[in-house]
Every structure is written in structure tokens, then in C-alpha cells.
């Protein structure tokens, strides 16, 4: 068992997470800091392997105003898609910034797809009234990550730390002082003392069993923020992507439908014609996911393994050449994971947990309200997505607001010389935290708890929700939280100890699950991704507001925050 070597690092800025938001933040902080700031970027895995690489379809940006697209149109689509829960001032800022930041990526070398005339090509995406998803085949996020990573390497003052498990932040008197982590290959404890940090750890991820998220995403940054009293906003809104590949849940990009693919039920019907007569298969994700589950629940689906009943995604209208050129990865996934070639056969799909609309309550520059602490990307909630995000707005969000958080934190660091200090107690705290995690505290197995959590969330907090299921789910999750304190981890070694990591991740997930279900139970209306069968209508009189949940003395404290409306009045959402 461990001898806890504590190594202390000293930085101006620590960025936690190396996805699109974290990488973009690091570049901007280095640029604005002009070599005067000591910056570290740390991540749980090797830095160039964040979950952002899995983003497939595209990044939204208004590039062709002369052809009919406009900022107002992108903003309206986003706000209508959000079911009017997005803050409209933030959305207006976002849509104006997207083209600037998307073209910047081009100048850093990303292989954006082209039109015949050599200019950037864009593809249609769900809920957008203009084809404005800028893309690089069906691996947009992957190319974006690598472009940003390469660009980051140009800056000498960014230190890179791979495979660091972050387990707490030092925050006192509403002021951030440092990040606590351990080095996964050695088990060595590390304190990253810092004047500022940016949380860019992504969404809730593996809260669900059937999901497009990679196993890496366990909401670590969100859970630490929750425990440290930060405000969690709108966490009950979880996006279910219509086309998760049965049985694994692997993402099949919306780009398939953008390029002409069609969803069909077991009777062969193009059922989306019924639910969204004008947008059909390119309606927003919440609407398609609900329509799919209605088809399945009414018996027009196919029987799948472990209750994963499914529908079919038909590629035939796209054409073989286009599939080979623009959807080559999807094709490979089909062939490899289910033995079906989309050139010859449709793929089995079902709504899969995909994205966290909510997050840490932040401003448009990513500020959390805690001195020295910012957040960006999926971990934050500004909110530009409200209760339902449109496809291709998230990678753009990461780039746009990663840049904002990086720039704003760097400016703040340059404008003051406020120092932070560590105390002897910090070191003892950091050591005891891990020593305690190794201790035998009961006969619960962390993997069992995680499996039960998945079962509960997949059943009680999925596409359709109601009071009875949510109440039952909350009870189960609270039981799991209790059990999560009474576990024994089987492996006691220091080096690459996945049992230790799995147990800490599991604790993060169960605590976040409580917030998701609690928020869902309190929101007695249906809006965007959150659909209550017992309250099937949107209720603007009572719920046109953001849910804010804070953990105070171990209890969840609920409050609300108004939505900022500028020029778009809430109206019925018809597609």
C-alpha cells in the first residue's frame, strides 16, 4: 500500500480537462498571458484522448450570410431548440463568435470539408433552419482536438500533465487556491497550487448505462464543484441522442440524417413524418427521441437484447458514394461492432444518453462566482442550450467559450498579483483523502453500485419521466450514496490502480445522480429534453426559469434563476 509522496507544483493557472474547451482555454490563456503566466493543463487520461474526439457531425457557424443564413436565424434556431430556456443574450454573443472561432481553426490547419469552389462546405443538422454544420468528414471533434493540441504545442509556457486523477479543489472563503490530484502511473499525490483554475471536465457522462459517452466521462469536475458548494444549474436536462447503436450505445452521427438518412419503425414507416411534419428526421433531438420511444412503447419497434428495443436507421437514400466519402467512420462502426454494413443494411438504433445541458452556473466569460475559478464547455452552463441542445452547437460552444474562459482568467491574473498560500493542513488533507479511499469501510463493491446506478437512471430518469419513477429513483440513489461510503476496494497498489479510480468516479456519479433526479422531480412541467408524462405541457408561468441546486451541509438546496429573454418571446414549438 501507498507511501504518499506529495509533490507540490506552483502555477498561475491550472486547466483541468483537455477536451476542446480545455485546449482552447489553454491556448487563449497563453496568448493573452504573453509568456508571463505559468500554465498547466492536466487530464485524467493522456491529453490527446479526451471524449471530445468522439464528436462526429459538425460545428455550427454562420458562414454564408450572402446565401441566406444570419446570426438571428442561428440564434432563433438555438433558442427555439432550447424550448426557450436558453439565455438569449448569451446565445446572441455565441452565434456572432462562432464564425470567428471556426475560421481560426481553419487557419490552424483543420481539414474542413470543401465545396466545389474550394470554400468551406456545411451540412444540415437537426433543428437548424440552414445547413450550417461545418464538418471534417464524420470525425469533426477528433480533427478539432488534434488541431488545437498541435496549436497548443507552439506555446512554451504550458506544462502538460497526463493521467492525473483530480479529486478535490482547495477553496476557502469563496477563493480558489489549488487542485488536488494523484498521478495515475505512480500513485503519487500532487498539489497544484494555483491562483486560478478552469474546470473543463465535461458532462455527467456515465451516469447512464446506455450512453454514447466514453467511460472516461464521470463528471469529476462537476461533482467536486457540487461538494464545494458551487451552484449547479439545470442538471435535470440530459440529452438523449436519437441514434445510439444497439446494444453498445455508440454514437451514430446526426450527420447521417443530415445527409439524407431516415428512421423507420418495424412496419417500415418513416414515422417522423407524423411527429414533425416539416423537419421530419431533422427535428431537434428531444423530439426525435420521444417519437422513437413512443413508437417503441406502442409496439412498433424491434425486440432488442436486455430490453434495448430499437428502430432502424436507413442509409439507402444517401447513396453509396456519399456514405463512403462523408460517413466512412460510421460505416466502419457498423461493420465492426454489429457486423452490418450501412451500404447494404440499416443500423439498429435507440436514444442514448449523450449530453448534459446543465452544469456549473457561469457567466459568458466562464466565471463561476468563486474568486479564481472558471468553467468552460460541457461542465459549464451559461446557458446557450437551455433544456435541449441543437446538434453541432456543442463543439462550437467549447471552442467559443473555452477561448472566453482562457482569455478572461488570463486577464484577471495579469491585472492583480493576489497570491494564494498552502498550509500544513492542506498536505495532510490531501494525504488523508487518499488514505481514506484505500481503507476498508464495508462490504460494498464499487462496480456493483455503479451497475445499480446505471439500471436506475436508464429506467427512472430516461426520455419519459414521472413522479412515481423519479421518487423511486431518488430513494434508490440516496441508498447508493449511503452505500458508496461503505465500500472496500479490492486492489491496494499504487501503480495504475483502476479500482481506486473506479471507486472515486462512482462516488462522483451517485452524488450527481441525486441532483439530476431531484431537479427533475421538482420541475413539474415538460420542456425540451425533460418530459414528464404527468405534466406533459410546458408551463412558462411557473417554470420559465433555471433550476439552481447547491449542496449545503450535505443537503440539496433548491432555488431558481430567471431566464434572460431579449427579442424572442416563448411560443409553441412546432417543427
Amino acid at each position, binding site marked *: 500500500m501507498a507511501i504518499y509522496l506529495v509533490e507540490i507544483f506552483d502555477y498561475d493557472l491550472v486547466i483541468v480537462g483537455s477536451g476542446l474547451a480545455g485546449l482552447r482555454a489553454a491556448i487563449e490563456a497563453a496568448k493573452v498571458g504573453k509568456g508571463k503566466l505559468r500554465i498547466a493543463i492536466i487530464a485524467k487520461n493522456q491529453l490527446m484522448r479526451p471524449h471530445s474526439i468522439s464528436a462526429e457531425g459538425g460545428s455550427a457557424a454562420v458562414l454564408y450570410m450572402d446565401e441566406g443564413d444570419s446570426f438571428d436565424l442561428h440564434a432563433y434556431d438555438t433558442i427555439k431548440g432550447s424550448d426557450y430556456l436558453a439565455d438569449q443574450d448569451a446565445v446572441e454573443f455565441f452565434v456572432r463568435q462562432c464564425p470567428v472561432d471556426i475560421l481560426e481553426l481553419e487557419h490552424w490547419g483543420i481539414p474542413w470539408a*470543401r465545396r466545389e469552389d474550394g470554400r468551406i462546405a456545411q451540412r444540415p443538422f437537426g433543428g437548424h433552419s440552414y445547413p450550417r454544420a461545418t464538418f471534417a468528414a464524420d470525425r469533426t471533434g477528433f480533427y478539432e482536438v488534434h488541431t488545437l493540441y498541435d496549436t497548443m504545442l507552439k506555446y512554451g509556457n504550458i506544462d502538460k500533465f497526463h493521467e492525473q486523477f483530480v479529486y478535490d479543489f482547495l477553496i476557502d472563503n469563496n477563493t480558489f487556491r489549488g487542485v488536488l490530484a494523484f498521478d495515475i502511473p505512480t500513485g503519487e499525490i500532487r498539489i497544484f497550487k494555483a491562483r486560478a483554475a478552469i474546470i473543463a471536465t465535461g458532462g455527467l457522462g456515465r451516469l447512464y448505462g446506455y450512453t454514447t459517452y466514453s467511460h472516461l466521462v464521470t463528471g469529476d469536475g462537476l461533482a467536486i464543484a457540487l461538494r464545494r458548494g458551487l451552484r449547479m444549474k439545470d442538471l435535470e436536462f440530459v440529452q438523449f441522442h436519437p441514434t445510439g447503436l444497439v446494444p453498445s450505445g455508440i454514437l451514430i452521427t446526426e450527420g447521417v440524417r443530415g445527409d439524407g438518412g431516415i428512421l423507420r419503425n418495424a412496419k417500415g414507416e418513416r414515422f417522423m413524418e407524423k411527429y414533425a411534419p416539416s423537419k421530419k428526421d431533422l427535428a431537434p433531438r428531444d423530439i426525435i427521441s420521444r417519437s422513437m420511444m413512443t413508437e417503441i412503447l406502442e409496439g412498433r419497434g424491434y425486440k432488442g437484447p436486455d430490453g434495448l428495443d430499437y428502430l432502424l436507421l436507413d442509409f439507402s437514400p444517401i447513396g453509396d458514394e456519399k456514405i463512403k466519402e462523408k460517413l466512412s467512420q460510421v460505416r466502419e462502426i457498423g461493420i465492426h461492432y454489429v457486423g452490418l454494413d450501412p451500404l447494404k443494411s440499416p443500423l439498429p438504433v435507440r436514444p442514448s444518453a449523450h449530453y448534459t445541458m446543465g452544469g456549473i452556473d457561469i457567466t459568458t466569460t466562464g466565471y463561476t462566482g468563486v474568486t479564481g475559478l472558471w468553467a468552460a464547455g460541457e461542465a459549464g452552463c451559461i446557458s446557450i442550450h437551455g433544456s435541449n441542445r441543437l446538434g453541432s452547437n456543442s463543439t462550437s460552444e467549447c471552442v467559443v467559450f473555452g477561448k472566453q474562459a482562457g482569455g478572461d482568467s488570463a486577464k484577471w491574473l495579469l491585472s492583480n498579483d493576489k497570491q494564494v498560500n498552502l498550509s500544513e493542513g492542506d498536505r495532510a488533507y490531501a494525504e488523508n483523502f487518499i488514505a481514506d479511499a484505500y481503507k476498508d469501510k464495508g462490504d460494498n463493491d464499487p462496480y456493483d453500485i455503479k451497475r445499480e446506478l446505471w439500471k436506475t437512471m436508464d429506467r427512472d430518469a430516461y426520455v419519459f419521466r414521472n413522479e412515481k419513477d423519479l421518487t423511486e429513483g431518488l430513494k434508490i440513489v440516496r441508498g447508493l450514496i449511503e452505500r458508496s461510503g461503505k465500500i472496500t476496494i479490492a486492489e491496494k497498489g499504487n501503480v495504475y490502480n*483502476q479500482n481506486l479510480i473506479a471507486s472515486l468516479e462512482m462516488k462522483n456519479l451517485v452524488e450527481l445522480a441525486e441532483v439530476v433526479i431531484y431537479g427533475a422531480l421538482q420541475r413539474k412541467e415538460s420542456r425540451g429534453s425533460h418530459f414528464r408524462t404527468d405534466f406533459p405541457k410546458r408551463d412558462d408561468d411557473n417554470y420559465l426559469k433555471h433550476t439552481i441546486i447547491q449542496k449545503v451541509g450535505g443537503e440539496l438546496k433548491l432555488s431558481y434563476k430567471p431566464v434572460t429573454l431579449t427579442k424572442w418571446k416563448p411560443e409553441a414549438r412546432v417543427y
Partner: protein
Amino acid sequence: METLKISVYRRDPATEGEGKYVDYEVPMEEGMVVLDAMKYIEKHIDPSLSLRWNCMAGKCGSCSAEINHRPSLMCKARVDSYKGQKITVSPLAAYPLIKDLVTDVSQNWDLLKRIPKFTPKEGLEKPWKISQVDIERSKEFKKCIECFLCQDVCHVIREHNSGYFGPRHVVKAASLDMHPLDALDRSTFMNKDAGLGYCNITKCCTEVCPEEIHITDNAIIPEKERAVNAQYDPIAMIVRARRKGRGNK
């Protein structure tokens, strides 16, 4: 229930001088991949088994190992494709061992950092115009997921301390050199600093690439040709020098 017999290399360098192969039996499942078997062992048989993994979808490049001594991604290696053969799993042999199946591949981070970065030509009119064909050419190399299987299989890296950066890094250079608007010529760097001349084009790297990048034919050979032209072809040298003088490539 049908079970799978699988042999896994185990060693903690902190306490064990020699490694050993340990046999495990895991329940077979439809569509099972080698990574599933490793995770089963870690969860249900021996929690001390260390492995690096993440997306389970062949995209992140974390779970590289050798399966029957062939460099492979564990998440893509279906156990039913080894019918009849015994399956043996061991760490990448070209890299220092951290524990069991986890190796230290960090030397690659330093090599990647040394390759001259994307540098667009000056004074380009905006928006940039590039044809799709040109995009595809550099995109093939940008597909690389940095799993380092090509590095592992390369006998120059395994057997000779030559200073050759390895196939992944030639692919990186090619991805930049073949960007239609890039202004640099990396051939001298690749030849002098990255030891490209040591590659004797056995094509092993191409065979193991999970992204099916034509590493040898499309990256290494063209990069070698550029290097040779740059160094030895007097006419090419004059043309290049004059072009450079005009601020173009």
C-alpha cells in the same frame, strides 16, 4: 456457458524482475473483444490487473497491446476472430513497462513537439480556397489516433537505437507537408533529425494501422523522396531556393 481461455502478461516492475504469463478463464459473450475479457478479469478475477482503456470504440487509441505478439487495439480485437488459437495478451514491447499491459509511451510527446508546426503561407486571400481532393490528401494522415501500434511493430525502433522517430511521426510530418497551404519544407528535418533514412520500408507499420492509413506508400515513401530531392537533386534545389526567395513554397 462457453468460456474463453486467455493468457495475460503480468509484471509490476517495482517488485518483480521478471514477468510471467497467467492463464485466465472468462465467460464468452457474443461480439466479445479482448478488452472485454481484460475488464472482466480486472473486475471479477484479479483486481490488480492494470490496463489503459477509455472509449471502447476504436477512436481514442488508449488500449494498444500485443495480441499473440501482433500489435493490436484490444477494443477492436474480437475474440471469435482467433478461433482455434490460444490468445496471449502482452504489453507493447517497444516501450518501458509501467505495469502489466500499461506502457510508458510518453517519449512520443517529445518527438511530436519537435516536428515543425503547421505554418500557412503568408498573404493568403481569405476565405481560404482549398479543393476537397487536397483536403483528403492531408486528412488521411490526420486520421492517426496515436495508438503507437506502428511504432511498436517497427523493427528499427525495437532493435536499433538509431534515433529514427518512427512511422507515426513521419505520418505527422506528411499531414503537415501535404496541407496545400503549408509553407514549410520538413524534409531536411525528417532526414537529419528524425532519422527517416533508417526506415527500410518493410511496410509492417501499414499492416497494423487500425485506421488503415497507407503509412509506407503514402507517407514514408513520399517523405523519403522529398528528402532525397531536397538533398541531392541539384535542379530541385535551385527551383526550391528561388521559390523560397519569392516567399512561396
